[in-house]
């Protein structure tokens, strides 16, 4: 309880308090009521960032989940050397997101990056590509980097769920002549409902709170097309020194996350 109070309730209360102030990073603060909240509606970049963050979340969640599920299925059984594969798939998770983003900056470079080298060697491209020069390709490479970075975590979560399903159920289904997909939809997925809910909620929260990869790989570009909502909160709080406005955006974002998680939890609740 003490931990929750110190690290969650007090910071939340302070953020809420700050959001009703004109609170510069340096200098005197003053009470301005709900002005920060009313200003949000006319903040063009805030609305654009919200839109971008949701599009990014919708695009990045399915590949993480589907690939995580496939990998979990592949490493489910305890066969020889399976630990090596599990480790390899999980390895990117233990690298910090900042470090992995820098790694991707290097890999995407048009002069020394490995992607251009491979594509040139395969004769798929005639000249080095500027992956971060166009909004669509910038978004795609970010998604690729995040899937690479986080899929191992989803794999581990789903693997735990898969291994908790008794083998007898599959053996009975085999006796009844059920095929792969029938077993998947009538045994595996229903019994993994809680695990799937956890994996999806964590993945969606992580995507809505995405920051490092945009700050480091794209710097919000090109043409400010990849500024996530947390990036915009950071900019307002620390670059423009508008801590109160940043706090108001954070409170709204918290509300959005609570709503999203509640909806997911409701849809994936146990129904028996």
């Amino acid at each position, binding site marked *: 309880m003490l931990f929750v109070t110190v690290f969650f309730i007090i910071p939340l209360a302070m953020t809420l308090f700050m959001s009703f102030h004109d609170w*510069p*990073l*340096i*200098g005197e603060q003053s009470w301005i009521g709900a002005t920060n909240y009313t200003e949000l509606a006319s903040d063009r*970049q805030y609305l654009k960032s919200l839109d971008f963050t949701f599009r990014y979340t919708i695009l990045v969640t399915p590949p993480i989940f589907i690939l995580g599920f496939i990998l979990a299925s592949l490493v489910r059984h305890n066969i020889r050397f399976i630990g090596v594969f599990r480790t390899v798939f999980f390895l990117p998770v233990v690298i910090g997101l900042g470090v992995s983003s820098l790694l991707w900056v290097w890999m995407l470079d*048009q*002069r020394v990056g490995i992607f251009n080298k491979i594509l040139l060697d395969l004769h798929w491209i005639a000249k080095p590509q*500027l992956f*971060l*020069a166009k909004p669509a390709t910038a978004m795609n490479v970010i998604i690729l980097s995040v899937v690479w970075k986080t899929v191992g975590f989803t794999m581990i979560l789903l693997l735990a769920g898969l291994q908790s399903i008794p083998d007898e159920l599959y053996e009975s289904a085999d006796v009844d002549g059920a095929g792969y997909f029938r077993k998947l939809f009538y045994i595996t997925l229903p019994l993994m409902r809680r695990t799937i809910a956890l994996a999806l909620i964590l993945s969606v929260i992580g995507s809505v709170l995405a920051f490092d990869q945009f700050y480091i790989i794209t*710097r*919000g*570009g*090109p*043409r*400010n097309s990849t*500024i996530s909502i947390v*990036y915009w909160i950071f*900019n307002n709080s*620390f*670059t*423009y*020194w508008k801590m109160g406005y940043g706090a108001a955006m954070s409170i709204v974002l918290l509300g959005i996350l609570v709503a999203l998680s509640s909806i997911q939890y409701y849809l994936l609740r146990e129904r028996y």
Partner: protein
Amino acid sequence: MTPRKAVCAVLILALFIGALPLSAQDDDVAMTMWVRNIGDQVQELVDAWNDRGGSQIQLTVIPPNEFVTKMGAAIAAGESPDIASIDLIYAPAFAAAGQLLDITDWVDALPYADDLLPAHSELGTYQGRKYAVPFLIEGSFIIYNKGLFEAAGLDPEVPPSTWDELLEAARAISAIDDETYGYYFAGACAGCNAFTYLPYIWASGGDVLSADYNSATIATDPIVREALEFYRTMWEEGLIPESASIDDGSSFVSAFGTGAIGMAGTGAFGINTYRNDHPELELGAFHIPGKDGGAASFGGGDVIAIGSGTQHPEEAWAFLEWMMSDETQLELYAARNRTTVRVSMLENEYSQDDPLVLTAASALAVGKSPYSLVYNDLFNDPNGPWLEMIQIAILDGDIEGALQLGQDRFTQIIEG
């Protein structure tokens, strides 16, 4: 004495002995100093100061794009440095926030107070009080590759003096071969383009802000549109390498050093870099021209200030005074091809035979520095309106949309 008491006695004695060297060091005050990463000059200065003995300075170098954010956060956390070398255009904002020490009396007492560079001194002044003095002096200009000029059939001793001449030179150099380009700009670097692109507008009599800096003139000043069209033409004709579109400033200096670029904007910091790293290049320099002639420069660089929370104001001022002294300016600035902070020393025994240093110094004569409390939000922010406008106009070709966006976002920021 019991063993426990004996241990306690030994520990207490050790504490006293440990404290002795600390009190002996009190004379040598240790100060912290922050600077953005713009070359070795500051490290050399600090090393020279520390070698003299007495108070010592511990230098922290911060990436340029992070400086304002880190400085603001440090001040908010009560961890600000004793001395800060600040990009001069941020000085008013830090002074307004009460974070810099008022050094008016000390500055006014200097025998050469009126000799300090005026543009930098003005930005170190807030509401009539002085908070910072000139430190690193950078006037923007164009550096050019004389070898490529010659190869393109141009006279290397007669650089362009109008936009049309610059365009023609860029075309001729780009025509040499597919790997050579006439011009370079860092297309994803906000600050670089304030430094090297704004002067094209100023030199033609235009501006993006009103004279009192309180309103935007992007959509109303025809020169702004023409300047965007000028760069757009170079981009569209392939006179600028495609990789420039994603250069966030990391290749701002190095691109020209490859030897494949004819002309590029730079500052005094570029002179030593190119000479040391690329001695094979034959370099020339000229002022940033206006549309039909004239010249302008961004009076940039850093001012140096003392943090209002410092415990060592006298020692910090002693460093500033030493930095501005005749000897330091001559031996650690002029002798190393750096522009001095004193007007009377801009031309000195070291600069007389060096056309590049003279161009860098004389650029200050046509230099201008916007005085705005929201400069960072307007120009230097990588996600700010200045860079977005440039990218939409020059890289995408939507000049009309860029002008409107720039006007709207500038106005929104200025009006708070």
